[in-house]
């Protein structure tokens, strides 16, 4: 919680920007089965995935950096958290450290989806408690299978 206190003002900024994370209002949508927080600094990534996941009944909440992601993680309680590694402000490693250490988020499975993960980093992440490490671009069937597995667990 020390981090929360130290970064109160920054988290405030993240809160103000929380409109970004609101799900799209649509006329009719499939029943929402799960909510996924997806942290990636490229909004095109989260926009494209939210279109596809929407059809699968999964609502995607986008966050653009580790700090915003952490704020959504503790305030909105997603079913799964997905994060990239390289991002401005807090990067994925900072986010993971906080998520895996905070009692409020330890139960939420965390998936890393990144454009470049070295084998050493992969094993370090898995050892750290990350549920899955996927390479970007991640194949759709693999992503679905991973989500199904984590949602059942």
């Amino acid at each position, binding site marked *: 919680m020390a981090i929360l206190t130290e*970064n109160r003002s*920054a988290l405030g900024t993240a809160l103000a920007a929380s409109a970004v994370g609101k799900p*799209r209002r*649509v*006329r*009719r*949508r499939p029943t929402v089965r799960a909510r996924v927080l997806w942290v990636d600094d*490229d909004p*095109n*990534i989260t*926009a*494209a*995935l939210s*279109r*596809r996941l929407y*059809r699968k009944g999964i609502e995607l909440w986008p966050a653009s950096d580790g*700090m915003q992601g952490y704020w959504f993680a503790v305030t909105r309680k997603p079913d799964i958290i997905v994060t990239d590694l*390289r*991002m*401005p*402000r*807090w*990067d994925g490693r*900072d986010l993971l450290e906080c998520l895996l250490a905070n009692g409020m988020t330890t139960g939420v499975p965390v998936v890393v989806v*990144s*454009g*470049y993960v*070295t084998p050493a980093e992969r094993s370090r992440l898995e050892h750290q408690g990350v549920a899955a490490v996927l*390479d*970007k*671009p*991640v194949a*759709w069937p693999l992503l679905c299978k991973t989500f199904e597995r984590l949602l059942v667990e």
Partner: protein
Amino acid sequence: MTTQVIDHALEAELAELNAELIRLEELDPVPLCDPAGIDWRGVVDTSNDAFLAVDAAGVLIEWNANAESLFGWSRSEVVGRSLEETILPDGVTEGGVGGLRALAVDPRKGKRLEITTRRRDGSDLPAEVSVATMRHGSSFLFNVFVHDISARRELQSQLAHAQKLESIGQLSAGIAHEINTPTQYVGDNTRFVQEAVGDLMGVLAAFESLAAAVRAGVDTSEALASVEQASEAADLEYLKEELGEAIGQSLEGIERVTTIVRAMKEFSHPGTATKTRIDLAAAIRNTITVATNEWKYVAKIETDFDASLPPTPCLPGDFNQVVLNLIVNSAHAIKQLRGASEEKGVISVTTRRENDYAVLTIADDGCGIPPEIVGKVFDPFFTTKEVGVGTGQGLAIARSVIVDKHGGTIHVDTKVGQGTRFTIRLPLDVE
């Protein structure tokens, strides 16, 4: 470990010399050497470096034994010929009296300079020359010691190559990231469009049935109900909203991949041995694109390029390497000062023309360089980064490329905690 002696004759000669020295030491007092009796010709001939002397017209008048073995011409072959006809071919001297201009040493450079000379067999020999001017009667004499630096040059070129490979390896990770991100969303969007088009076909079929009913003049209420049902099922409102965006973002993604692949191709352009005139701004933009992943998380890049700067004679591969090294250094300096959680820093890159020079500056608002080490930053192997991060060659290579290969200059201005600016001047070689 003991030294193995293979040459018995040499061993005997060495033992004899040692015995002679011991015998001399035992004499009291050691006899003084009479300078008047020294064979100065012998001194010059036994020098470890090649020695040559040139008169004011650039004609060789002296040539020692080492010069004979280094360049391949005997003394009698070269004495009386000009430097231009022998070790300094036309391309190097670019006019001047008999090739003398190539030996004109800028006093600020410490009376030594590195030049490329030519051997008798036509091959190049990189050499460090030290020139002293001596008055001789009513004219001048130039005494030149030539030190073979081909081994050093070879090492430098291997290091430069290693550094280039290192930075390309580092870049490839960033480029993988830059390409994989758009690939991800282009793929997802295309799949989305594919599924959406499938749904739209269903809606279209319902509309076709409605049109057929209208044409036949039969009751349309059933067909109309199917249209509404199909539109509802396809979530037509949602598709109208999302389809355009999905296609637009995909095109943007393809554009991003194309840009970075094109930039990489330009950047890794095989180095040419001769200079070509290039648009510096285009080359710099390209390098900035290739290195995107190295700076984008910590800095913004602001560019200000002088549109009136003429194409500049340049070795493109080497020049790109220098710009890359400086931008990566700037990004590291900003990261060191600001860490990851603060606002981004600024790297500003400018070009302008100053008389007959193209001037390039790369400045950052990073941590700066402490005064006690600023004098060493261009030294090979000097690094402040952790072991394993960098070879300590980045700025040494920048200096060698700009100064040795382009005849330009590179300067650094820095203030701890405020930032660093590198200024590079490249001669435009205007006629």
